[in-house]
């Protein structure tokens, strides 16, 4: 094998030659190895493709849902126009449909619920993430919070109707508003309980992930625990905490059953936070089965489209805020 390159520094003869044994067993072994690597490459490609197809299906599904909503709500969009969004009357008898009372109800209940739940979820996250990551009490608390997310929403609705509503009614009697119990406020309370686990769990794992050298450096400089939380942990985890809150909000916007049971289901515009109202999701759940006119059915589907878009817009705004917070 005289393949040395004249002007190069390395010649083929410098490389130690690998001795290939020519015994039949060895050849068989080599063939097997080749087959194996062939198979590995093939499996690798197929696995990669499967992952990609799975991902694509998700995109197709979401786009498909959006497309279905748009197509099905076309009759109502044609008949009612954009005034559907700010129309204040929802009257199936005279085919007048305005989504404003329900849009308002959805936003009011969701944001009120979020405001009520944030102190609880952040506290739980800090307690479990920083103060007591281990032990029987923190474990119990962690499991309990996770259980909150696992309880079916109809149970919350039932509990709300049986326990929470009478308490709210007493409160309303004391402060002098119409004492009906059910309404925006009761729904927000129920929703607040239901969405705590989302922000709390994400917040807890974020706080757990704060590098200990950062915290130890702060302690070494003489910082108190509160100062460490305020100046090290919260700034480090704010995008994660915010993402958790966003997740909670998404859950609150779409919750149907529990809200339907305690909101009072009226198409009138709520006068204050104690008034009965309605949300887009609960109107759809209530009226879909007996929508006996094409425009009525289509108006309900358009309500679904509006809910879909509201969720998308709020998520996009949330993403922007997270980006800004992370870049600062």
């Amino acid at each position, binding site marked *: 094998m005289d393949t040395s390159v004249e002007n190069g520094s390395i010649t083929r003869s410098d490389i130690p030659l690998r001795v290939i044994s020519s015994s039949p067993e060895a050849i068989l072994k080599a063939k097997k190895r080749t087959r194996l690597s062939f198979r590995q490459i093939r499996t690798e490609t197929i696995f990669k493709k499967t992952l990609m197809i799975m991902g694509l299906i998700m995109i197709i599904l979401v786009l498909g849902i959006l497309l279905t909503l748009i197509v099905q709500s076309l009759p109502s969009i044609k008949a009612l126009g954009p005034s559907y969004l700010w129309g204040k009357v929802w009257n199936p008898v005279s085919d007048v449909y305005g989504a404003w009372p329900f849009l308002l109800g959805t936003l009011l209940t969701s944001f009120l619920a979020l405001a009520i739940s944030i102190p609880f979820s952040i506290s739980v996250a800090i307690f479990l993430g920083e103060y007591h990551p281990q032990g029987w009490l923190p474990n119990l608390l962690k499991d309990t919070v996770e259980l909150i997310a696992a309880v079916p929403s109809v149970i919350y609705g039932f509990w709300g*109707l049986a326990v929470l509503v009478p308490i709210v009614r007493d409160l309303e009697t004391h402060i002098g508003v119409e004492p009906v119990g059910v309404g925006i406020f009761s729904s927000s309370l129920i929703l607040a309980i239901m969405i705590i686990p989302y922000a709390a769990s994400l917040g807890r794992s974020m706080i757990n992930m704060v590098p200990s050298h950062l915290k130890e450096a702060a302690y070494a400089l003489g910082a108190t625990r509160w100062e460490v939380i305020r100046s090290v942990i919260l700034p480090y985890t704010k995008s994660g905490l915010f993402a958790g809150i966003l997740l909670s909000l998404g859950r609150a916007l779409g919750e149907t059953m529990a809200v339907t049971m305690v909101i009072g289901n009226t198409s009138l515009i709520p006068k204050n936070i104690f008034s009965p109202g309605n949300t887009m999701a609960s109107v759809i759940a209530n009226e879909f089965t007996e929508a006996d006119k094409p425009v009525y059915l289509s108006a309900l589907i358009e309500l679904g489209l509006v809910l879909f878009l509201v969720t998308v817009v709020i998520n996009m705004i949330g993403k922007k805020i997270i980006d800004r917070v992370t870049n600062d």
Partner: protein
Amino acid sequence: MKFILPGFRGAFATAALVSACVFASVSMVSCGGGGNAGGADSTSAGSGDALIGAGSSFDNPLFSKLFSEYNKTNGLKVNYQSIGSGAGISQLTAKTVDFGASDAPMNGKQDSALTAPAIHIPVTAGAVVLSYNLPDIKDTLLLTPAVLADLFLGKITKWNDPAIAAANKGVKLPATPVVIAHRSDGSGTSNIFTTYLAKVSDEWNTKVGKGSAVNWPAGLGGKGNEGVAGLIKQTPGCIGYIELAFAVQNNMAYAKVQNKGGNFITPSIASVTAAANIQIPADTKVSLTNTEAADGYPISGFSWVIIYKDQKYNDRSLDRATKLLKLISWMIHDGQQFSSPLTYAPLSPAAVSAGDAVLKSATYDGKPILQ
């Protein structure tokens, strides 16, 4: 190639499954615009031995009993899907069921969606009662049509209102605020109640109108009879409307309502049957609300079975059509004995004979089926 191994085949199967899913979702999207009956092939009504019906949830307990009794004597299976009156009519329109059942006769828009004329046969009657939560009042509350309309219009806001007191002489009414409870879901019960209010109050007729879902001027909505009953039970001063059967089974207090003849009538099976003993038009599509009958309860209504007038469609056999008509005929005659124990009002003689006449008008390929 020899080296296609189980692992690879598994992966291939996954890929195939995945592509099938993609196709399914794409085709779902593409036919999504076809309306609410999309994808329902017309063959299902013709296949299998069992008759298929769908519609009113109000009828469901009675129908379950009737169909199981009929199965014992005649061996015919009936599969009834309690999906709501409106949905039952859609299913009939799509020809996926043998019969639909509805608490409201088909309206003009629903009629025009049909490809062939349909006929209505009344099978039972129900009543809507006004249940209330006034723990201090021992006597039964009396309500006049005017008071009822003003309550639900939100014009009467206190229980000691002079209008209520005038109808309930000698009863000490509390100053509790009135809370109205209505159905939040579309329902035949709401349809009967709002039809009644529209008949007795011009203001209700122009401001609200009638329908299975209306724009309620006041009050709280509850989902289903149980939702409204829940609101009534736990809100002091609450009044709402529920089905008679539900109120009886749950021992709820309900009011006597003044009928057209001026009598205050307690809702009961007897007074509902009495309400139906009136002149019934040939197509039986009549509302029993505000009945002329002197001892009839004014807020009641028929529930109908709806079938196509000509039973020859989608390759249906004469045998299947005959079975269906015999079943309905049995329901309005012998089947009526099962109504009262389940708190449904048996049909009045007038309703049965009107139903018979409609059934005889049904044809198969132009020829009458029942003699």
